């Protein structure tokens, strides 16, 4: 039996390739989200992983779910990594990316070799720069996520919208030619 066929699509294989490691946000890649949430072992793993990330990137505070790790990057030219959600229906995939404080024009969406690239730069407001600061918790700089598109993604009909700091990308699914099915005539 081909186990690979049973596993869910890995949207992050390009990202893993590029960074030479797994995506840092959640250690357990391919498990369905329900399992991920309820399994205490993986929760523990995630906590440890979170902790490491925070220490490494110098974040002293965080909360258990998502947003605080919103940008995983940090100083030293590391790309920031906004959080993404991926949903699937029979008709389409919906990818949402959390990008607060970024202008629409500063986001770039490209598809190259079956990989959807969400990139751009978060800039600090000019007005703010001229002031003294008390707290600087938000991160600025270049960000990027790579998403490997599944085979049935219709790359010509990708649509994107941007609202309240959340980018939504819809990728329609198309029927794949049934190359595996062969009709055999009964004589």
């Amino acid at each position: 039996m081909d186990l690979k066929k049973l596993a869910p699509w890995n949207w992050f294989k390009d990202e893993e390739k590029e960074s030479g490691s797994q995506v840092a946000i959640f250690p357990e890649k391919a498990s369905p989200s329900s399992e991920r949430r309820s399994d205490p072992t993986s929760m523990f793993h995630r906590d440890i992983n979170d902790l490491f990330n925070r220490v490494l990137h110098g974040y002293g505070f965080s909360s258990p779910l998502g947003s605080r790790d919103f940008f995983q990057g940090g100083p030293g030219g590391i790309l920031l990594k906004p959080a993404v959600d991926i949903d699937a229906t029979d008709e389409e995939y919906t990818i949402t990316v959390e990008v607060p404080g970024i202008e629409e024009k500063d986001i770039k969406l490209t598809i190259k070799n079956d990989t959807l690239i969400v990139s751009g730069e978060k800039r600090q407001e000019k007005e703010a720069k001229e002031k003294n600061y008390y707290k600087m918790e938000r991160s600025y700089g270049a960000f990027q996520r790579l998403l490997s598109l599944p085979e049935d993604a219709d790359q010509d009909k990708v649509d994107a919208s941007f609202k309240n700091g959340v980018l939504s990308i819809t990728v329609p699914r198309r029927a794949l030619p049934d190359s595996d099915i062969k009709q055999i005539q009964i004589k």
Partner: protein
Amino acid sequence: MSEKANIATVQESIPDKGKDVPVTAPVVDIYENDEEILLHADMPGVEKDKLTVHIDNGTLDITGLRGMKRNGAPDWEEFGDIEYRRTFSVPQTIDIEKIDAELKNGVLELHLPKSEAAKPRLIEIKKAA
């Protein structure tokens, strides 16, 4: 008495309270100059009507609720429904009447102007007669 009334309004403004939505503190930048204190809080996905900014007696409360519209089966989830909530102490010298809040690209921008009395002044030294 007035305190009680305030608590009631805050609760009214947070719908779906019964649901188990995780609460998190939004990340903020806080700047200050002679004129004002400026606060930026990242609250991606929060609609304007789900956001409350409340200031009372030197305490500033920010609450925002994000309900993500999920479309079909989740394949991967790094962020979801969330309640942003954070409380700050602000100096009494803030001119509450002139506070200005704006929600833009998922970022709350809050201008807290200082009252005239609190702004730095150069005091003229008079010559002794």
